[in-house]
């Protein structure tokens, strides 16, 4: 989860930093890393390529200006962040309201995207603000969708207009029109129309959705899309926008660990804002959308400063001191040290706190995922440890000698793929480089805060924010055993 753009870029950026100046070749390789990271986050290819060319243009411009005193690597990250924010933040707004109530909201989207659940959440949210919403059950296709909405309505205390029992029987256009008339008569000030899931390529059902829309002329037609959607998000969003017409977007299942590149794909292709996030199964799990948070999530940048603080606590005093000694004495950072750091990382305290700092993942959900993440981390740590333990002492001290056949042997010995070994070596090299740079007084990489530099989350945390964070002096730990203290604090 941490293995995002920043970890990817740390390698490239370490190189950039050492030279202190960016040139067009560096820029290209950085752009390549950004491209891969965005694709891994499920941002649609065409959107990625547009974004990259814009960042390239602005990057080259920045190069020609040769502003002194500004870290060029930071500049590239800032540019990409700005560009993403531009897309996500376009036309940001809240729910549209009618001049004359009721305000009509129509939900549309693929099967299983979470429309019915969302209808309930939206209704509850409106109700809590003193409104009198009505839910209208227009999904007459999916078995027992009407009943699902009725139960939800009962749970949240919002009336549901459901004249048809559904399961393939009844005309959704008629139900929508009658629902509207009912709302007007009963003076509801909001009406939410739940519709059946449909595919963008289903011409008949798209026509039907448009007919529902014409019958009720919604003030807001919201496209509901699953945060875990891949490349198809652009096609579907485009299809719904052309066939039905979309005013805004709701992103669902945001409590997953997907990087949610679909958010960017959809807003980019239809040019309409995301209004809300659906973040869990309970009716209360519903939030307004913040472009900034989402940009960071897609890029994989958490609250890096605090992350660094946490990691520092996890390193126990002794190994921290030993590392520091090595560091100042100018000794090379070896696999032995790396292993030690990995093990320290394993001891790291409350991951839930860290999770709470990750964009798009508020504290409560973070807590629920706590153990989960710990185990993921552990398995990764164990994997790395197994690989390192399959190295000869000589290889651990002098990793440069690890050639192809040695990699093969290490892979066999540790029971992992060569690619896994390669990845670890890459990460290690990046860490080693970072350590060297630090010693040479470069800008503070993670290690300055006691952050294990080889780990993706840490060495990866060198976004603009991280660099800023490290301008603060590093505080010395107060307690004898920071790991223990972190535990105690966790309670």
């Amino acid at each position: 989860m941490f293995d995002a753009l920043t970890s990817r870029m740390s390698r490239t950026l370490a190189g950039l930093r050492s030279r202190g100046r960016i040139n067009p070749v560096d820029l290209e390789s950085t752009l390549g890393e950004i491209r891969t990271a965005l694709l891994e986050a499920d941002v649609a290819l065409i959107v990625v390529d547009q974004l990259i060319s814009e960042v390239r243009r602005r990057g080259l411009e920045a190069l020609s200006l040769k502003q002194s005193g500004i870290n060029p690597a930071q500049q590239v990250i800032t540019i990409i962040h700005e560009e993403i924010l531009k897309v996500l933040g376009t036309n940001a707004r809240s729910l549209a309201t009618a001049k004359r109530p009721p305000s009509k909201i129509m939900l549309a989207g693929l099967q299983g995207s979470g429309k019915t659940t969302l209808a309930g959440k939206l209704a509850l949210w409106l109700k809590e603000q003193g409104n009198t919403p009505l839910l209208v059950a227009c999904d007459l296709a999916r078995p027992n969708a009407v009943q699902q909405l009725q139960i939800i309505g009962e749970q949240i205390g919002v009336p549901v207009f459901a004249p048809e029992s559904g399961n393939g029987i009844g005309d959704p256009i008629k139900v929508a029109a009658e629902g509207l008339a009912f709302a007007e008569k009963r003076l509801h000030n909001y009406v939410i129309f739940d519709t059946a899931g449909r595919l963008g390529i289903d011409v008949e059902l798209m026509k039907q959705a448009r007919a529902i829309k014409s019958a009720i002329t919604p003030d807001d037609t919201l496209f509901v899309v699953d945060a875990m959607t891949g490349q198809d998000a652009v096609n579907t969003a485009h299809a719904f926008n052309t066939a039905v017409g979309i005013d805004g977007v709701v992103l669902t299942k945001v409590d997953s660990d997907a990087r949610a590149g679909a958010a960017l794909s959809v807003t980019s292709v239809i040019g309409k804002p995301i209004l809300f996030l659906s973040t869990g199964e309970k009716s209360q799990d519903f939030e307004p959308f913040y472009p900034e948070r989402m940009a960071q999530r897609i890029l994989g940048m958490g609250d890096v400063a605090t992350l660094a603080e946490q990691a520092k606590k996890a390193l126990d005093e002794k190994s921290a001191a030993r590392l520091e000694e090595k560091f100042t004495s100018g000794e090379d950072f070896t696999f032995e040290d790396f292993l030690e750091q990995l093990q320290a990382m394993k001891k790291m305290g409350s991951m839930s706190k860290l999770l709470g700092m990750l964009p798009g993942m508020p504290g409560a959900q973070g807590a629920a995922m706590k153990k989960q993440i710990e185990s993921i981390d552990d398995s990764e740590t164990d994997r790395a440890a197994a690989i390192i333990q399959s190295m000869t002492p000589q290889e651990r001290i002098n990793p440069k000698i690890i050639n192809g056949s040695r990699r093969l042997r290490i892979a066999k010995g540790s029971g992992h793929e060569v690619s896994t070994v390669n990845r670890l070596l890459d990460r290690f090299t990046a860490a080693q480089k970072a350590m060297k740079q630090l010693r040479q007084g470069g800008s503070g990489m993670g290690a300055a805060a006691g952050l294990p530099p080889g780990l993706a989350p840490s060495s990866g945390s060198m976004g603009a924010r991280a660099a800023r964070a490290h301008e603060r002096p590093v505080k010395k730990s107060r307690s004898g055993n920071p790991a223990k203290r972190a535990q105690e604090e966790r309670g």
Partner: protein
Amino acid sequence: MAIFSKFSSLFKRAHESAAHERGHIDWQELESTLISADLGPTLAHEVAQQLKEDKKLSLHGALEQLLVTKERQLNLAVAGPTVILVVGVNGSGKTTSVGKLGALLAAQGKSVVVVAADTFRAAAREQLETWAARSGLICFGGNDGADPAAVAFDGVSQALERGADYVLIDTAGRLHTKEGLMDQLGKIRRVVEKRAHVSEVLLVLDGSTGQNALAQAENFTAAVEVTGLVLTKLDGSTRGGSALAIERSLGIPIKFVGTGEGVGDFSPFSPEGYISGLLSQ
């Protein structure tokens, strides 16, 4: 199908295609095509790389190599009913797939019991009952909020008594990141196994899922040892390439595909059809 002409030389076998033909391939575009099918940038690059290096390999062949398992039949119980646990994230198509798979088996003359162990989502039980009624399956379910493990246990017990051939257990959708819910899934399996061996755990994956699919498969496997994938909603514009990475990395075979909301829109996985789908645009 434009892609077939564009990369036509990649479809020929080595003896048919002169080596130099590959010089004309737009590798960038090939990678783009694969990325658009949700293979992910790394796997797409790897496939292109393989094709560059091995001139004997066809594009089809390279993709087929990623489908590492050959056995795609349902695992059957040696004696007694074959118990199949169906799991997945919210809205992926579990209940629908249980209904359709049940119908498929019933059409083969098997007696099928479906168990509604989704006691969480509103009207989930009724949804499965509707499906069961459509194809003459026997349906067992618990009340809303009942312990899903107990419901599953009771359902399997009933199936044993009736001497059913298959028991399909539908479970509540859950995100793979929710520790507690994943534990609950493990518990369902353990409790059921007190009664009968679980032969098959099918993970239902929405075909439009992106790179998060692998994380889903990893976590569900960690919780309940997934033995097969059901890839749904392939009737849409999505191509379902993220399942390829799952089969490749975790060795979990894709066993079935869902291609619509009708009872017949469900079939055993065909590698050829799937790969052609990946490459079509």
